[in-house]
């Protein structure tokens, strides 16, 4: 056992993320992560329609890390944290995605021109359309950090549901 499974850090009351996931950069995990993100969004109070949009944005962002950050290697590490948070705009969901992959200038992270219809080049556009705040940064040392925020405003709010597990 030993170092292969380091112990979790102690948490404080302020550590409010609903879920934190560290996973290998393997696309086979994306489906389970979508399912988990769906539960988080509903717990926070998003409607079904808003939930599926936030899930889509997070899925696109993770797929991009696997494709571009790790250039399709399956053994990179990805960290995802998601939970309720408040920013100047009010309450909503905060999602932070970090990796140890290739670093790129955040200015170069952009989709193709939408008029130029061809396969690919839509993910970043969709992330920016869906989320209220999208911030790409280089991490100290290696990898990228993407911070996403979506407001829980009138349109995005769902009936207060307990949220089943959604396959």
């Amino acid at each position, binding site marked *: 056992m030993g170092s292969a499974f380091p112990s979790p850090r102690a948490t404080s009351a302020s550590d409010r993320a609903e879920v934190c996931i560290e996973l290998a950069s393997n696309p086979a995990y*994306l489906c389970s992560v*979508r399912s988990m993100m769906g539960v988080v969004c509903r717990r926070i109070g998003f409607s079904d329609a808003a939930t599926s949009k936030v899930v*889509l944005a997070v*899925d696109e962002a993770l797929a991009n890390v696997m494709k571009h950050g790790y250039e399709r290697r399956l053994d990179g590490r990805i960290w995802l944290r998601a939970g309720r948070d408040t920013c100047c705009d009010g309450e909503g969901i905060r999602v932070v995605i970090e990796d140890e992959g290739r670093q790129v200038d955040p200015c170069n992270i952009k989709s193709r021109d*939408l008029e130029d219809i*061809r396969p*690919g080049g839509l993910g970043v556009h969709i992330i920016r359309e869906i989320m209220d705040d999208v911030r790409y940064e280089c991490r100290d040392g290696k990898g990228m950090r993407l911070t996403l925020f979506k407001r829980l405003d009138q349109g995005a709010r769902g009936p207060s549901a307990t949220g089943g597990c959604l396959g």
Partner: protein
Amino acid sequence: MADKSSLSIRVETRGEASVVAPAGEVGYHEAPALRSALRESLDRKPSRLIVDLTGIHYMATPGLATLIEALQISKRTNVTLVLCGLTDRVRAVFEIARLQTVFRIATDVDSAATI
């Protein structure tokens, strides 16, 4: 949790048309299977290829890319490509990507066979 794959694909012939009906989710992991099914159907050069999306409850950009690629091949090979059965959720993704006018879209397989 353990015996349903996240995407299954049914392929059938309906008169002159081929129908490809994926069911489940099309994300980055699942898109290659849809891509293969569409390419195989296009290779057989039907006069019409209907992609019935009724069973899709999740569509991400790798799925859209696959459909755009199929559209490009269909144009080169004179196959009429028609999508149908878009749920509200799938339609929303086409709209965010501004693709709703790029494809020929019908409500169901019956109308996709004639429009």
